[in-house]
Structures are given as structure tokens and as C-alpha cells.
């Protein structure tokens, strides 16, 4: 058993962290908000040059052929900066699906192209207007189209960097790709959104900690008061106990059984609950400032709301966990169980 990140994975995280720290600060997204932009071409190009869009693509499609655990560490860093661009949906979910169905597709040839996905679980498609290709669902099969081949209706999100659309389309104007693995797409999206949740959560706590060290009331920094400390400590507890669930879910996606699916859903719920708890604590600690447009916390809150309710609501994911709880063995020998565990134990 080895439940730790490898040096290579830690290096990915560091590469992403450094890249985002330089290019994706609140000053960067505030400039984008002023002009109503949701995509920064220079940042996205840098991110593509560093290979972040190629992690999950198979080598046959020009990618690195790495695993979900490798991408999850990048998603966490994307959450920490509330990255505006659709790295997770495009490179983490849609591109690997397209590569599995059509490895030669031209949208895969350009590492800086984005791909959108209309998963049957989601009512809206994110970033469909700027995508080089949109993956569409009909009767379990996947189709692919360009934005010009479909009709997009904008559905503005409270998160200024999520451009949502409803899509009307006709199969005769799209390319049929055949039966696709929509469940795998969902599992990947759920885990990477959970990983982003960990990043959003930690950033919300860190912002509040910085503020609480500086802001004085009654002659002392507010961070010295126990009531303030306890809000942030509770949020940190939620983060610490979501983290290993997200890591295990990412590592086990490939098993594709009821146990691994339950853990993916568990990760989706607790990763974003940690973000919600942290954002709320952060706003509270900031006081009235926390309720202002000027302070950065609101973007982390809005992204949290968006990610919580997309790619399966908490109720949807809780029901997947219930299937595991009430249908499969529980107990202390089941932590790392999968569907052949009992036979393996007998053979040991």
C-alpha cells in the first residue's frame, strides 16, 4: 500500500502552483471582470505549453497518458486560484472522452484548444461558445459538433468566469462517435471538482487568516480571539478530512465498481462542503468587508456554489453512496475493499 503522492505528482502540483501564482491573481481576474472576459489567452497558452492540458490524454493522442491522481493535484491548484479557464472540464473530462472515441479528432491536435461536454446530468454546458468541439449526448451515444453547428442560448452564471449555455442541436448536423462512457466522464468530473473544492476551501481559509492577523479590534488582532479562531479551525478540520477522500477517489476511479463510485461521490460531497464551510467562515471573519465586492472571497464562494450543484447534486451523489452502504459489506476491513476483496482474502 502506498497512499502518498509521488515526487512526480508533487512536482506537477508545484509547476501548476507556480504558473497560477504568476498568472492568476485576484488582480488578473478583476481586470477580466472589468471587460467581461472569461478567458485569458496568454494564461491559457502558458498552461498548454507546460503540458497541463495533456496530462490525461493517451500518448496515442499526443498526451502524457497519466492518471487521475496526477490531474487531481493540478485541479486542486486551479481551485486555489479560482482559475477562470475550463481546464478541468476540457482537459480533465471532455478531451479524454473525445480521445477515447476519436483519437485522431482535429480538436485534439491543438493542446490549447478547449473541448466542451454536454453531459446528460448537467442542464447547462460550460464554455460551449469558445470550444473547438462540443461533445453531445443522445441515447448513450456521443456526438461531436462545433459551436456553429448548434444553437447556443446563454444562461448567465453568478460566477463571472463560468459561461453557461443551453444547447439545441440536430444529430444530422453533428458527427456520431458511438457509445461513450458517460459514467467515467461523470466520475472524473466529480473527483476533479472535489479537488478544486479543496483548493477553493484552503484559499478561503488562507485569505481569512491573513486578514485576521492584520485587522485590529479592541486593541488586538481579531485572529487572537477564540471565536474567530474556532471558525477557521473548524473549516480546516473539514479540509483535512476531505483531502484523503479525494485522493483515494482519484486513485480508485479505474476500478469502476460500486465501492469506487461511492468514494467518488463521497469526495464530491465533502470536497465542496469543505469549500462551502470555508467560504462562509471566511466571509464571517472578514466581517462587513467579507460581504463586499472589493474583498476576493466572493469569487471562491460563487465557484463553490457552481461546482456543488453541477456534475451531480449532493442528493445525486448521496444516493450513489447509499447504494454502497445498504448493498455492500461495511465494516473495518472494507476501507480499501473492491468487488473481489473477499476472494482475495481467502486466497491469502
Amino acid at each position, binding site marked *: 500500500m*502506498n497512499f502518498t503522492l509521488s515526487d512526480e505528482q508533487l512536482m506537477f502540483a508545484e509547476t501548476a502552483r507556480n504558473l497560477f501564482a504568476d498568472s492568476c491573481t485576484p488582480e488578473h481576474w478583476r481586470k477580466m471582470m472589468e471587460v467581461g472576459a472569461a478567458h485569458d489567452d496568454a494564461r491559457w497558452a502558458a498552461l498548454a505549453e507546460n503540458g497541463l492540458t495533456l496530462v490525461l490524454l493517451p500518448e496515442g493522442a499526443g498526451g502524457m497518458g497519466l492518471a487521475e491522481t496526477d490531474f487531481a493535484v493540478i485541479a486542486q491548484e486551479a481551485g486555489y486560484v479560482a482559475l477562470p479557464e475550463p481546464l478541468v472540464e476540457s482537459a480533465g473530462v471532455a478531451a479524454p472522452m473525445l480521445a477515447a472515441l476519436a483519437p485522431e479528432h482535429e480538436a485534439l491536435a491543438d493542446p490549447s484548444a478547449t473541448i466542451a461536454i454536454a453531459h446528460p446530468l448537467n442542464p447547462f454546458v460550460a464554455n460551449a461558445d469558445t470550444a473547438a468541439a462540443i461533445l453531445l449526448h443522445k441515447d448513450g451515444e456521443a456526438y461531436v459538433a462545433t459551436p456553429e453547428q448548434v444553437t447556443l442560448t446563454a444562461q448567465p452564471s453568478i460566477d463571472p468566469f463560468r459561461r453557461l449555455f443551453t444547447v439545441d442541436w440536430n444529430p444530422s448536423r453533428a458527427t456520431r462517435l458511438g457509445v461513450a462512457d458517460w459514467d467515467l466522464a461523470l466520475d472524473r468530473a466529480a473527483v476533479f471538482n472535489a479537488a478544486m473544492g479543496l483548493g477553493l476551501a484552503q484559499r478561503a481559509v488562507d485569505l481569512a487568516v491573513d486578514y485576521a492577523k492584520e485587522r485590529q479590534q479592541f486593541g488586538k*488582532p481579531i485572529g487572537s480571539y477564540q471565536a474567530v479562531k474556532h471558525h477557521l479551525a473548524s473549516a480546516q478540520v473539514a479540509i483535512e478530512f476531505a483531502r484523503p477522500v479525494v485522493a483515494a477517489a482519484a486513485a480508485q476511479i479505474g476500478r469502476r465498481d460500486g465501492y469506487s463510485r461511492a468514494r467518488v461521490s463521497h469526495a464530491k460531497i465533502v470536497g465542496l462542503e469543505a469549500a462551502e464551510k470555508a467560504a462562509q467562515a471566511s466571509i464571517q471573519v472578514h466581517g462587513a468587508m467579507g460581504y463586499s465586492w472589493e474583498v476576493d472571497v466572493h469569487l471562491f464562494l460563487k465557484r463553490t456554489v457552481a461546482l456543488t450543484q453541477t456534475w451531480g447534486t449532493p442528493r445525486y451523489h448521496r444516493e450513489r453512496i447509499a447504494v454502497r452502504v445498504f448493498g455492500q459489506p461495511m*465494516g473495518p476491513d472494507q476501507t480499501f475493499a473492491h468487488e473481489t476483496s473477499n476472494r482475495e482474502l481467502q486466497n491469502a
Partner: protein
Amino acid sequence: MDLTYTPEQQAFRAGVREWLAVHVPEAPLEHFDASRAGFEAHRDWERTLKSGNWGMVTWPGEFGGRGLDLIQWLIFEEEYYRAGAPGRVNQNGIFLLGPTLIEFGSEAQKERFLPPMAAGEEIWAQAWSEPQAGSDLAGVRATAVLDGQDYVLNGHKIWSSRAVFADWAFGLFRTPGTERHKGLSLVFFPLDAPGVTVNAIKKINGHVGFAEIFLEDVRVPAFNRLGDEGQGWHICMATAGFERGLMLRSPARYQVAAAKLAELWSTHKETADPALEADVVRAYMNADAYALNIYQTALRLMAGAKIGPEASTNKIFWSELDIHLTRTALAILGPLAELTQQAPAADPVDWIDDHIFALAGPIYAGSNEIQRNIIAERMLGLPR
């Protein structure tokens, strides 16, 4: 990342399971805090464990252990709880004093104290708290004064778990003339020594799980001091780290409880509030998250890391998950919730007693308020 057990770990699990299947008593023992008889029945169980060399599995072999690594320890605990084996009356020795002695004790002290602890021959109580020093442990006032080759102990200890029936206690004492964290020493004393008076304190479930201890000119050899004079605070903080870290509460306990809760739900779901299903699922999630966190921590420690302030997050998490879990059980039981085990209609699991015990979780081993302060100050860097 590889989340599968090795063939060696699987074989180890099978061996533990086999031994426990033969040796775990069929009928549950009376609780060790309920009566002298219950205490002695648990002492006998400690001897049985020792006979199979399963008493102190993480201790080095030379002191009566097996030298297991932390993953093997987790597997052992999983099988232990899975088998429904009795609670460990010597928990203070196994998880608190034992590791502390191994780290800070002299060779002579290890030889004197560890083997009888491992064999269940000497059961240990802890004597840290005082009426004026609970969460503020540095406020301890009991004194230890060196007189020739002996320490003379005086003072008043309270909330000492196991002290009513146990043989020995480890206590924190002040060297006169020094204040706060400096000048504290950790000293062992037999609970039947002249000058020691132990008064039982009943817990809210009626068990005599606590005691207050009065010490009047109690003489113990200087040999009974662990570490140097004045090092007591440092040693106690290391001990508290063991306690708050992974060893006080192995995840298996909550995984078994979550499984029983799911069974309870399945039995009562026709009559119970449908909204409670979400709480049952949550109990599973919490137990699972706790187990995953502990596995990850164990692997980190095995790779050379030290337990740090993040151990305080564990204590908050397990104590809160335990309350949530038992409260959910009471809600599912409805009018049956208040029944004692003597009631003919009672559920086989004593959920109300489990719930009452769970309520102590946020208090003992350092209150959760103290843990949150530690997280805020030492993990997040907020000012004191």
C-alpha cells in the same frame, strides 16, 4: 498510489482474524468501569491477549510487543473491532504511557514497567488533571519534593480514568518554586501506597470511571520519575500527541458502529423519519474519511514524519462523528431510544450508553476548544 494491501498484510489479517475467532469471549464482559469484577474480567482478557502475544502489538519485541508497523497495527485494530473483542482496560498503558516510556525512559525503567504492563499484571491510570488544572494543564499544583532517594508527593488529582481499580498511576507534579510549564515532572506512584486516597466519582452513566486522588506525603523512589526533573511538560505534550494522534481512537471503532447503524436503519426504516437515511449515509462517510485520514497519516509517519498539530484535527473529527452517529441511532430508535439494556424491547446495541459516552469525547484528551486553538495557532499561524 496503490491502495491495495500486500499479500503479507492480507496474510497478517487472516492470522489475526483466526486467533480472535478462537479466543474472543462469546458473551460480552461486564464493563471495566462498572465493577471490580468487570475490571478483573478485562485484566484476564489482557492476559489472554498476552498469551497470544497480541497485547502490545506496536511495542518492540523485547518489552513484550510484536514490533508491528502502523499499517499492521491498523489491520490488527480492524480485526479486533470486527471480532467484537472486549475494550482495553489497559489503554492508558498501551497507547499513552507505553510509547512515552519507550521514548523517554531509561533502560532500567523500561525493564521494570513495560513487561508487567504488556502482561496485564499492572494496569495504569492517568493522574494529570487537578481541580484547578484541567484544560490548563500547566496550572498543576501537586508537588514532588526530592528527599534523599525519594520523592514526596502531595496534592489533589481528579478525573483520573481507571484509578478506582487500577494498580499504578502516572501523574504530573510541580517542583516547588517554579511556575507554569517549567518545573513539572512526570512521576509514577502505586495507587495502594501509604498516603494515597482514591475516591470514586460516578460518571453520568453510573460507572465509576473516574476518581479523585488525594496524596499526603506519599514516598516513591526517585527512580519513578520519567525523564529529567522539569521535563514533565515536554514529555506530557509528546504523550498528548500520541493520544490526540492516531492511537487513542482507531477508525475501526467507528466503522463497526456505522455498520451497526446501517443495520439499525434497515430494521426501522418503515417507521423512522425518511430524512434520517441521509444521516446514516453521513455516518458511513465520516467513518470512512476518518479511516482514510489515519491510513494516510500512518504512512506518512512510517516515512519519517512526526505527529504535529494536525493531530488536533483528528480529535475534533472523531469526537464529532461519534456524537452524530449515536444521535442518529437514537433518532431512528424513537421511543425505544431511552430504554436501558435490561428492557425486554431494547436494541441489542446499547446506543444510549454509547451516546452518553460520545458526549465526553469533546471534553477528554484536551477539550475541543483547546484543540481548535491549537489548530488556529500552530497550523494556521493566528496570534495567541
